C-alpha cells in the first residue's frame, strides 16, 4: 500500500529517467494486453481487475499520454464487464488522469461514479478516493469542500491498521490551510505530517512537509527557520534523487535571501540551483534558470551579465516554444530595459508581450480570475491615463514603484515555474490569490467609501429636500379651494420618489450598518421585508459588539445577496439567519425551507459573489441543498 500512497500526491513528481523509461515500457506492454483483451475476451490470464491495479500502480502525471491511450482502450471492456471492483478502479484512475489533464469537470463526474462502486473497497482505498476528490476540489479552488474530503480521508485513514496514509493526509490538509492563509493551522498539520512521516520513514511525505514548513516560516517572516527547513527539504530530496526539487529549494532560498536584502547570498543560491538543473537536462527549467540568474545578477548591480543571461534565456525559451513562459520573459525584459532607460527596447518587448498576452488570454476560458485580471488591466489603464496628465517626474516614480511590485511578482512566479513539487504549485496559486485578494480589497475599500458618501448625500440632502417639498405641497393642498387630482398625483409621485431615494441609499450603504453595526443592519433589512412574502427570523449573540468594517460590510452584503436569492428563487416560507460568535470564529448561517438550489440556475451568480466575499474574509463557505429540503449557506470566518 505504501507505494500507492506515495502516488496519491498529485503534486509530487519523481524525477528518475531510468524509472521513467521502464515504466513506459510497462505501460506499453499493458496496452498490448488490453488489445488482446478486446479481441479474445476474458480468456487472458490476467483478470481485468488486476490489470487495472497494474495501471493504478503506474499512475503518474509523467505518463499522462500513455495513460490516456490505455484508458480509452480499457473503457469499453470495463463497461461490458459489469464488475464493481473494475468499475471502481477504472473511474478512480480516470478521474486522476482527467486531473492531470486539468479537466476538472469530467474528473468530478468520474469520481462520482467511483463512489458508486466503492462499497467493497477497504479503508485504504477509501482514503485514496477521498484524497483524489479533495484534490479535484482544490484545483477548482473550492477549498471548503476540499478540506471536507481530506478530513473524511483522515477519518478512514485512522481506521487503517498501519496508518501509512496519515502523513499524506495531513500534508493535504495543511495545503488547504496554507492557501486560505491560515498559517497557524497549516503549521500544526505540517508538523504532524513531518513527525509521523519521520517515524514511518516515509521520506517523500517528509520532504513535502519540510518544503511546506519552509513556506510557512517564510510567510511568518521567520527567515532563519525557513532556511533550516529548506535545507532539510534539500537533504531529503537529495536522498530521493529528485534534483528538480532540490534545485527548486535552492532557488527559493535565493528568493528568501533577496527578501532579506542579502543579494550576494541570494545570487550564490540561484547559481547553485541553476547548476543542479543543468545536470537534469530539463530544457525548460534550464532556460528559466537563466532568467533567475539574470535577476540575481541585476540585483547585485551587474547589469551587463544580467542582459546576457536574459537574452540567453530568451533564445532558449523561443526554441522550446512555450508561449506562456515566453510571454513572462518578454514582460521581464521590457521591465529590465525600462530600468536601463532603454525605452525603445522596453517598448519593443512590451509590444511583443501584448501580442502574446492577448492571444493567450483569448484562448483561455473566461474564469472568475481572468475577469479580475481584466478589471486589473482596466484599472491599470485608467491609472496610466491619469498619469499622462500628471507631471513627468511624479510619473516616473509611480511607474517605477508599480513595476517593482509586478516584477517581484513575476519573478516569484518565475522561480516557481521550475518545480513540480507541491509547494511551488501552491505558492503560485497563492500569489494569484493574493493578487486577486489585494485587488478585491482595494476595489472594495474605495467602493465602500464612495458608497458611504453617495448614500449619505442621497439620504440626507436629496431625501431631506424631497421630504420638505412634500410637506410644502401638503400645505398648499390644504389651501386649495377645490380638490385637485393633479395635486394628488404629484404628491403620490413625490412620495414614491422619496421612497426610492431611501431605498437606493439604503442599498448603497445602510446608515444602520455604519452607525450601529451588523446586527442592527440585518434587523433593519428584515424589518423592511413584506411579512406575507416570508417569515424571517434572525438570531445573534453578537449584540452591539462591532466587527472590523470590512467584515461588517462583506457579511452584510452576503446576507443581502442570500436574501435576494431566497426571495427570487427559493419559494420558501421561512428564513432563519444566525450570526454567532464562537471562540475562534464567527458563523453566519442562512437557512431556508424552499425548493433547494437548482443546478446551473440564475442563483449561481449570487452564490459566486458570496463565495468571493467569503474568500476575501479568508473564510470557509459551504452550501447544503437538497430538493424540497431547502438550502443552508454556512459561512465561517476567523475572528
Amino acid at each position, binding site marked *: 500500500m505504501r507505494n500507492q500512497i506515495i502516488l496519491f500526491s498529485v503534486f509530487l513528481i519523481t524525477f528518475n529517467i531510468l524509472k521513467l523509461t521502464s515504466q513506459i515500457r510497462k505501460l506499453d506492454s499493458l496496452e498490448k494486453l488490453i488489445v488482446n483483451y478486446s479481441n479474445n475476451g476474458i480468456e487472458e490470464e490476467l483478470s481485468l481487475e488486476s490489470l487495472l491495479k497494474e495501471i493504478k500502480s503506474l499512475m503518474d502525471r509523467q505518463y499522462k499520454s500513455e495513460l490516456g491511450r490505455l484508458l480509452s482502450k480499457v473503457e469499453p471492456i470495463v463497461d461490458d464487464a459489469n464488475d464493481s471492483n473494475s468499475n471502481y478502479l477504472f473511474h478512480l484512475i480516470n478521474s486522476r488522469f482527467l486531473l492531470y489533464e486539468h479537466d476538472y469537470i469530467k474528473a468530478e463526474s468520474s469520481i462520482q461514479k467511483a463512489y458508486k462502486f466503492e462499497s467493497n473497497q477497504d479503508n485504504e482505498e477509501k482514503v485514496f478516493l477521498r484524497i483524489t476528490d479533495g484534490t479535484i476540489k482544490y484545483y477548482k479552488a473550492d477549498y471548503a469542500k476540499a478540506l471536507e474530503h481530506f478530513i473524511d480521508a483522515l477519518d478512514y485513514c485512522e481506521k487503517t491498521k498501519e496508518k501509512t496514509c496519515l502523513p499524506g493526509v495531513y500534508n493535504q490538509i495543511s495545503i488547504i490551510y496554507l492557501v486560505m492563509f491560515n498559517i497557524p493551522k497549516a503549521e500544526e498539520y505540517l508538523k504532524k505530517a513531518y513527525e509521523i512521516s519521520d517515524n514511518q520513514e516515509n521520506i517523500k511525505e517528509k520532504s513535502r512537509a519540510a518544503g511546506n514548513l519552509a513556506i510557512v516560516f517564510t510567510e511568518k517572516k521567520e527567515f532563519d527557520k525557513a532556511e533550516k527547513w529548506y535545507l532539510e527539504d534539500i537533504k531529503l530530496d537529495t536522498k530521493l534523487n529528485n534534483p528538480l526539487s532540490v534545485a527548486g529549494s535552492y532557488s527559493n532560498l535565493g528568493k528568501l535571501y533577496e527578501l532579506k536584502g542579502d543579494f550576494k547570498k541570494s545570487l550564490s543560491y540561484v547559481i547553485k540551483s541553476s547548476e543542479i538543473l543543468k545536470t537534469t537536462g530539463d530544457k525548460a527549467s534550464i532556460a528559466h534558470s537563466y532568467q533567475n540568474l539574470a535577476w540575481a545578477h541585476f540585483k547585485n548591480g551587474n547589469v551587463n551579465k544580467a542582459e546576457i543571461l536574459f537574452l540567453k534565456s530568451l533564445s532558449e525559451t523561443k526554441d522550446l516554444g512555450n508561449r506562456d513562459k515566453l510571454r513572462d520573459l518578454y514582460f521581464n525584459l521590457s521591465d529590465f530595459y525600462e530600468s536601463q532607460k532603454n525605452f525603445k527596447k522596453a517598448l519593443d518587448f512590451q509590444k511583443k508581450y501584448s501580442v502574446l498576452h492577448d492571444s493567450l488570454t483569448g484562448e483561455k476560458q473566461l474564469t472568475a480570475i481572468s475577469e479580475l485580471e481584466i478589471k486589473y488591466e482596466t484599472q491599470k489603464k485608467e491609472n496610466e491615463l491619469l498619469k499622462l496628465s500628471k507631471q513627468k517626474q511624479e510619473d516616473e516614480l509611480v511607474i517605477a514603484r508599480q513595476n517593482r511590485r509586478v516584477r517581484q511578482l513575476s519573478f516569484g512566479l518565475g522561480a516557481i515555474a521550475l518545480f513540480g513539487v507541491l509547494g511551488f504549485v501552491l505558492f503560485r496559486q497563492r500569489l494569484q490569490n493574493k493578487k486577486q485578494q489585494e485587488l478585491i480589497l482595494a476595489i472594495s475599500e474605495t467602493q465602500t467609501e464612495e458608497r458611504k458618501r453617495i448614500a449619505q448625500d442621497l439620504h440626507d440632502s436629496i431625501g431631506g429636500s424631497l421630504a420638505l417639498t412634500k410637506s410644502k405641497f401638503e400645505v398648499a393642498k390644504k389651501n386649495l379651494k377645490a380638490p385637485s387630482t393633479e395635486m394628488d398625483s404629484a404628491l403620490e409621485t413625490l412620495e414614491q420618489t422619496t421612497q426610492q431615494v431611501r431605498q437606493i441609499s439604503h442599498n448603497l450603504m445602510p446608515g444602520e450598518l455604519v452607525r450601529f453595526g451588523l446586527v442592527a443592519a440585518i434587523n*433593519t433589512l428584515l424589518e423592511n421585508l413584506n411579512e406575507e412574502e416570508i417569515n424571517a427570523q434572525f438570531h445573534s449573540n453578537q449584540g452591539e459588539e462591532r466587527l472590523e468594517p470590512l467584515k461588517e460590510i462583506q457579511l452584510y452584503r452576503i446576507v443581502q445577496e442570500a436574501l435576494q436569492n431566497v426571495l427570487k428563487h427559493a419559494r420558501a416560507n421561512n428564513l432563519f439567519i444566525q450570526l454567532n460568535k464562537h471562540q475562534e470564529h464567527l458563523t453566519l448561517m442562512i437557512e431556508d425551507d424552499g425548493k433547494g438550489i437548482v443546478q446551473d440556475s440564475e442563483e449561481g451568480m449570487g452564490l459566486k459573489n458570496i463565495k468571493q466575499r467569503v474568500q476575501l474574509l479568508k473564510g470557509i463557505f459551504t452550501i447544503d441543498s437538497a430538493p424540497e429540503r431547502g438550502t443552508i449557506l454556512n459561512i465561517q470566518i476567523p475572528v
Partner: protein
Amino acid sequence: MISVLIADDHQLFRQGIAAMLGDFDQLEIVGQAANGQEALDILENTTPDVLLLDIEMPEVDGFTVLKTLKKRKSPTKVLVLTMHHSSAFVQNIVSAGADGYLKKDSDQNILLTAIEQVNASGSYFPPETTQMVLQSLREKNKQGVVTPREKEVILLIVEGLTTKEIAERLFLSKHTVESHRQNILLKLELKNSAELVKYALKKGWA
C-alpha cells in the same frame, strides 16, 4: 408660546421648516443651527422649550448633541427629525436621550402635534413607529429558539449518532452539522452534547 430651536445642516430644509412652523401662532422660532456644535453653543446660553434635531450632521452629529444635553441635564426637550426610519435607529436615539421622533416628510399638522406633545407631556412617537419598535422587541424575545432543522439535529444527537452519521441522514455536510451543533449549544447555553441530551430529555423531545 413654545420656543423652538432648529438644528439641521441643510439650509433649505431649515428655512422650509421655519417657514412652515411660522404659520402657527403658538410656536416661536428662536434660532437656527447649521450643525451640532452651533446647536450646543446656542443651548449654553438659552433654553428653548423644544429642539428640532437632525441626526446626520457634519462633525458634531445629532447623537453627540443628545448625549451632551443629557449630561448637561438640559431642560430643553428634543424632538429628532430625521430621514432615518428603522427600529434600530429609534431605539438608539431614545437611549441617547431623545424625547420624541418624527420622520422628515411628516405632515405639517403632525409636526405641530409632535412639538406640542413633547413640550407638554415630555414625549412623542408616531403610532407606526411604536408599532415597529414593539415588533422588533418581540422578535428579540424569540431569540434562543431552535429552528426545525436544529431540532432534527438535536434528536439525532440524542439518538447517539455521530456528526458524520447525522450529516448522511440529513443530507448535510459535516461542516454544517458541526455548525448546527455549535449554534445549538450557544443558543441553549449548554456546554456539551451530554448536557444537550439531558436538556432534550427534560423538554420531552426525545
